[in-house]
């Protein structure tokens, strides 16, 4: 039962990162252009699906609470201020989708909140993962770092890194969904973003070695972890080739694969801990009666339905976005 819920949690986090990752990334790219036609097309590439993507964040939060309440309590309270900022950013960005085309003179406000919200939310997400990898100050199952205990250069570095990562994912989605100017621009951006991401990964690795982060010992203990960088390297090569040859469909999947291997690396480095070296999956799990109650309804029926629904909604909106002329 615990295994089942930890798997569902992992799938939800991964889906969130991949799906909201690209639409947050497009939000960031949106801020990098002034061209209304290009903005319009970018908007069209995410407008019908963004809320579905964001739902996976809420799903992650409630699975965490229901199935692993101890971890939910520690993480939410430890990352108090970052979460406030991330939630505000996501709200502003979310209502921008509703309001942009209703606004007349005020459109710039929603453009800005779409861009700013996407950027800030991405940065905070990267920073929290960085802080987790570095290790939170925790004593007696309780966070003890104060208001800014999560803050560190390494965490900031991870925040910046994720901005590159999501933006790359976003650019690859645009290549997949759009034509014309937007696609050409995205193709131009992909190499820079990839190099940015690569530089980030190298710096993180060097940093981890220099700081002798505890998590790095996992690599010595579990040499099979090296399969993930290998997969990522392979994906990066295919990415380069597909960008070179303009195979529109391929880059997105390759970047997704890179994210998948990063996710796998982290997950297996953490295992069996949920918060590294503080609380294990077994310790964090809710009592059997709670897990069973969730399993027989939402776990067994609703969750698979949600996955099917996600696939269907992407099939409905498959194909290229055609930017319509402005009215």
């Amino acid at each position, binding site marked *: 039962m615990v295994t089942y819920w930890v798997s569902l949690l992992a799938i939800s986090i991964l889906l969130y990162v991949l799906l909201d990752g690209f639409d947050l990334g497009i939000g960031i790219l949106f801020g990098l252009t002034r061209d209304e036609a290009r903005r319009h097309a970018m908007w069209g590439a995410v407008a019908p699906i963004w809320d579905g993507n964001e739902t996976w964040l*809420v799903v992650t939060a409630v699975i965490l609470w*229901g199935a692993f309440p101890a971890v*939910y309590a520690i993480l939410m309270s430890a990352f*108090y201020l970052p979460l406030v900022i991330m939630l*505000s950013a996501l709200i502003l960005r979310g*209502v921008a989708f*509703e309001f942009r085309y209703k606004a007349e003179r005020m459109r710039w406000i929603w453009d800005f909140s779409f861009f700013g919200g996407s950027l800030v939310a991405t940065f905070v997400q990267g920073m929290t993962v960085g802080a987790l990898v570095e290790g939170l100050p925790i004593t007696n199952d309780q966070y003890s770092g104060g208001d800014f205990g999560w803050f560190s250069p390494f965490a900031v570095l991870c925040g910046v890194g994720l901005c590159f990562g999501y933006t790359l994912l976003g650019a690859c989605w645009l290549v997949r969904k759009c034509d014309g100017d937007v696609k050409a621009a995205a193709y131009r951006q992909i190499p820079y973003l990839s190099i940015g991401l690569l530089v980030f990964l190298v710096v993180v690795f060097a940093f981890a070695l220099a700081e002798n982060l505890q998590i790095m010992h996992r690599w010595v203990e579990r040499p099979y972890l090296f399969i993930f960088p290998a997969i990522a390297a392979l994906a990066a090569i295919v990415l380069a080739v597909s960008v070179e040859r303009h195979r529109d469909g391929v880059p997105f999947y390759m970047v997704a694969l890179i994210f998948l291997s990063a996710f796998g690396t982290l997950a297996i480095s953490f295992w069996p801990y949920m918060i590294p070296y503080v609380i294990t999956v077994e310790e964090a799990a809710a*009592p059997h*009666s709670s897990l069973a109650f969730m399993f027989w309804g939402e776990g067994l029926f609703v969750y698979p339905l949600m996955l099917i629904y996600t696939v269907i909604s992407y099939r409905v909106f498959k194909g290229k976005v055609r930017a319509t002329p402005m009215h």
Partner: protein
Amino acid sequence: MDTAALFLSRIQFAFTISFHIIFPAFSIGLAAWLTVLEALHLRTGRSAYRVLFDFWLKIFGVAFGMGVVSGIVMAFQIGMNWSVLSKLSGPIQGPLLSYETFTAFMLEATFFGVLIFGRSRVAPWFYLFSTAMVALGTTFSAFWIMVNNSWMQAPVGYVVEKGLFVPNDWTAINFSPVVWVRFPHMLLAAYLTGAFCVAATGAWYLLRGRFIDEAKIMLRMGLCLAAVLIPIQLFIGHLAGDYVHDHQPTKFAAIEGRWHDEQPASEVLIAIPDEASESNKYAVSIPVLGSLIGSMSFNSKEVGLTSFPRQDRPPVLIPFFTFRIMVGCGLVMLALAFIGSYLSLTRRIGRYRLFLWATFLSFPLPFIATWTGWFTAEVGRQPWAVYGLLRTADAMTPFLTAQAAAISLVIFAIVYTFIFSFGIFYIYRLMRTGLVRPTVTPAFAAVPNRPLSLAGEDAPVLAEAGE
């Protein structure tokens, strides 16, 4: 523990949840109203129903969106500010709220997509079915929220293991009699909110001489529905009072403004309770009525606040007044609904401008009633987060600083005020633009697979690859 942080956290929770409840209260009712309209349109084929449907769907879209974004905060905030509560009662509250998210996602989000993008893509019966599923989804959401909150009011079906509240009887939790009084109470409140907003919009259009036919439909349907529902609501509200009487004697005494045990008890209609002197000032009360309301008897003993130690008593002023405001709103709405139904049945609904003005201006009443009802329930539960088991002060994140709580409160206040102002402004503009009667079938309706953004005048149009 920092008392300033505790105070700020409570304010923040009250603020964010009060903001959030506006939208579900509105959209649960609207979803049901949309279902009725769509069913009527399918049955009668009258175009007015379709025009109304399209109009209210746009407003539903804005309200639904604001409800979703303000709801996301809820999924995090309990862990952020109330981490002890979320850890100790997590085994019970976590699964309940996860069911809320899951059912909401499955029904609301899925079929809401069909409502917006699917009119021309699916069969009419399926479109009606989707509307009904959205309504059902919002209802389920409300159900799980009420199960969760009722467990905090009257905990059942649990054992304490290693300090955690571990569920041992989910049937008792989900089918607690408290749930099955409070869930209908909330559901009816939402339906009344929808009904009054619809009726007020109708009154507004009639006052301005616009869309006369549709406006009369709105007035008639809104007020006649309210005329049926409010008496039921008053009865269920009375049952809700019974559970408070039996399970939460301190809350009941605070609502009644009863400081000392009385036999037979009188009923305080209005007064200014004074916590310092433990008495009421300027009280107007009716003898014996208190026993009658509390225990359905002429001679029962009713418990007063002074029978409980001070640290176990809730604040008195807030539940005392919010309860009376709620009932007052209910009675005003009842009067409007009865008069309106009478006028409507005698076909004189548009004749009295004073009545139209009264109906138009009544649209805040259901919201105020919902808010004050919740204030009564939540403030009256104090000083407990989980009644009798966990104090609010002990439920808070122990290391939360006043500084962090102040920053978050300010940020949420700014963000919420900002989006709320725009949300209201855009809803107002949709209402001012009014109903759109189609003269010719728009071109896009004939082409399948061209979803248009809901209320977007020039939103991006998507096309399928193979087209």
